[in-house]
């Protein structure tokens, strides 16, 4: 993993597996938050929650060797913590990054269908 010794990378593998296993649940949470933002009833709360959840992934992903996911989580957090305008305007600007972030979460997940 990024910047880690082999011994540490092996030791962290179990944590990484657990993180990847839980990504399904996180993806569902992010999809829910996206729906709340687009529904427009209380977008500010959903935007804050999405920023906080992205922040958590930002801190963990790169340590576990998922640097691209960490970068995208950071980009989402940065955009969502400085959100302005209406929900629709905000989504027009921030939506593409959010979608790339969700795509990346799906991409790094193991294919459990082959197990």
């Amino acid at each position: 993993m990024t910047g880690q010794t082999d011994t540490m990378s092996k030791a962290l593998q179990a944590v990484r597996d657990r993180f990847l296993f839980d990504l399904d649940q996180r993806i569902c949470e992010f999809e829910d938050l996206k729906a709340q933002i687009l529904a427009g009833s209380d977008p500010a709360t959903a935007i804050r929650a999405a920023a906080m959840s992205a922040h958590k992934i930002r801190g963990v992903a790169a340590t576990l060797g998922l640097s691209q996911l960490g970068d995208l989580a950071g980009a989402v957090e940065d955009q969502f913590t400085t959100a302005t305008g209406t929900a629709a305007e905000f989504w027009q600007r921030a939506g593409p990054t959010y979608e790339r972030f969700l795509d990346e979460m799906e991409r790094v997940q193991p294919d459990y269908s082959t197990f």
Partner: protein
Amino acid sequence: MENQRDMRILSVDDEAIFHDILDTIFTVQGYRRNLRARSGAEALTLLRDPDRQFDCILLDIQMPGMDGIELCGHIRAMPKYATTPILMLTSMSEQGYIDQAFAAGASDYLTKPINEVELNARLRAAFHSINENQRIEALTWQVETTSVDKVGMRFADPINLPEVKDMMAYLAMQNFLLTLGNLRAHSWSAIGFQIVGGAQFFAATQPRDFLEMLQDVAISIRDGLKTHSYRLAYAGNGEFVALIDKSTPVDPDELQDRLMDLLEPFEEFHLAASGQTVQICVGEPCSNSLLTLAAATAPLDRALQSVRQKAALAGSAPIAATG
């Protein structure tokens, strides 16, 4: 405590998987005495427990409820954790967070993703500061409770002055600059202050009088800089260093005159204690150029060199480290 791996570490982070990462790193590296808290409130409960003592505290910044910076301030207000190393361990790399964390009392700042080698190095630095802090705390306690001659205090000791508000440990000031890096540290300049004849004052007085004199000087510097954005630390050897935001530049000669005025009310005490009045020499502001290869902490050394040269030129003996 003879080994850094014997440190009792409290890690505070709301993310369970990050605790798993830390536990794994600690286990591989041989740290055995780490405990986790998932919130500021939980951490405070553990820290207030009279049956527990932690040697080092790791804090995330962005947490629901109480954030790590607020928590850091609460921890520093607890006498038993007034000098315990607090390492911020966070994804937040913006300068505003770094400034706030050190202002709240953080000793060091490490950004995620975590690298095991770097974490271990920072924990080693924390371990060494614990031993030094314990020695200085013991000295301070002895100074306050006995009149025993010198009680092992050295003139070179960068003693903490917890009774003076808004001061930071000299090590934390160095870490602050290292965390900022040269580019962002460029917005600060360092200014050195020397107590002229400080070594003679130290030799002529009881440690308690010397500590009180340091506090008088620190308070005077603080008051002299009150219209500026600054950080102040005592570097030992009768010398202070201030980091001053370059947007509010300082004229060292004017500041020196002002400090002499501010020290006047203490003159009688200093004279009675040591037979001499205290005078302050203020050096030139120092900072790195933007493209320098020098360490971000280099301005601190240059600020001290500047004030030593100025004091020597003014006719006083330059203060050299003793003991």
